[in-house]
């Protein structure tokens, strides 16, 4: 089970499944973690995944993705609870309207890989993305936002930490300040809980993606798959709900060295308590 999760919590999973036919595993994960919302990147066969998800369940999943989307969403919420607000190349914006709870803006990302984009361009991409986040927050009239997905950059890189970009702090207390003024401009924080999962002292693997390179700087383990949470949602979020998954229903997602094998990314799960109260 997801660590310290209440029965009314909304449970999320993000997984870059690398175009693998693993509907059965996704279905097993949905049962094991009692998932409500599944976001998949590099998902080629969404129909077979939907069928697997809906085998022997009283709460079937609905599949959502427009032709331009890069992230497939499977939702157990009633039809109409998830609206797709926009697709912009590698980012999709969803509005989740919980039937009896708080509504949330979800930005699902699968940003370009370092193999195809320079660091500076990755940073620039993040400034573009945060402008869209601000745009949709203004449209919805709140800042209950999460950004989740395969960022293809690590939590310590400019695109994630710079004020003009995601402004994602490793500290909940810092993020709870809400905003920070830099050179006359006010920037809202995100909280990035994935920092706590970096390296060997976490409860899971050292990262979500392993890459060995011949360059002099090589950290091997990367935390490309992340969830960022706005301060306005922090009361609904427990750090302990975040897990990097390495086993689903007895199937190892890692090889003997602990590296991802079924996909080249491990999935992440987390929960939010969106019930009003």
């Amino acid at each position, binding site marked *: 089970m997801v660590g310290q999760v209440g029965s009314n919590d909304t449970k999320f999973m993000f997984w870059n499944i690398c175009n693998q036919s693993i509907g059965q595993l996704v279905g097993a994960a949905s049962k094991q973690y009692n998932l409500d919302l599944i976001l998949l990147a590099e998902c080629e066969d969404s129909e077979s995944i939907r069928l697997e998800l809906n085998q022997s369940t009283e709460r079937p999943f609905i599949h959502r993705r427009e032709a331009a989307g890069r992230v497939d969403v499977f939702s157990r919420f009633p039809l109409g609870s998830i609206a*797709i*607000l926009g697709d*912009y*190349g*590698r980012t999709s914006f969803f509005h989740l309207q919980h039937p009896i709870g708080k509504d949330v803006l979800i930005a699902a990302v699968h940003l*370009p890989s370092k193999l195809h984009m320079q660091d500076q361009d990755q940073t620039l991409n993040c400034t573009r993305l945060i402008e869209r986040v601000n745009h949709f927050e203004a449209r919805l009239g709140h800042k209950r936002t999460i950004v989740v997905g395969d960022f293809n950059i690590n939590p310590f890189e400019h695109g994630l930490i710079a004020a003009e970009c995601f402004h994602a702090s490793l500290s909940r207390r810092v993020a709870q300040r809400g905003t920070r003024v830099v050179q006359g401009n006010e920037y809202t924080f995100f909280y990035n809980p994935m920092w706590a999962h970096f390296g060997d002292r976490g409860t899971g693997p050292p990262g979500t993606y392993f890459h060995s390179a011949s360059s002099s700087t090589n950290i091997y383990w990367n935390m490309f798959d992340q969830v960022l949470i706005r301060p306005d949602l922090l009361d609904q979020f427990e750090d302990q709900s975040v897990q990097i998954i390495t086993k689903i229903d007895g199937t190892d997602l890692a090889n003997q060295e602990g590296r991802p094998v079924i996909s080249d990314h491990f999935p992440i799960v987390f929960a939010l308590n969106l019930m009003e109260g």
Partner: protein
Amino acid sequence: MAGKSLWGELPKGEEAGRSPKSILQEQALLLSNSPPRDLVGKVSTTRNEYGGIEHELLIIAPFLNNYEVGIVRAVHGALTYPVTVYDLTAGDVKTGEYPTEQVFENVLEKIFTSKNARSIISSLRSQSPKKPGGLAQQLGPPS
């Protein structure tokens, strides 16, 4: 008393030809006016952190609660050409840098007529109440 102008005869801008923004705006308008006029083309312009000027052509589907989809991004500096183009329908892929309006138009045409762009427009129109046999046609003209 005004001093002598040292600017000479200032250029009026016509020599520079059509800018990437004006070309994108023309295309957005053409899309908006294309029957059955169910989709809206829009150009959004911003300045990026490195001083570049970015124009994005978006398609908006008013019948899907103003769902937006990005089609193309054109980026240039103080000079309008060369312009760098990103194909958003292919996942934000840089297609190249184009020195003139002619080659810029050529690449736009290639993107607009690509399988990805067709599939996006077709998918949106299949959900339109104005499509043949769609809700608007079934209900008939307003009384």
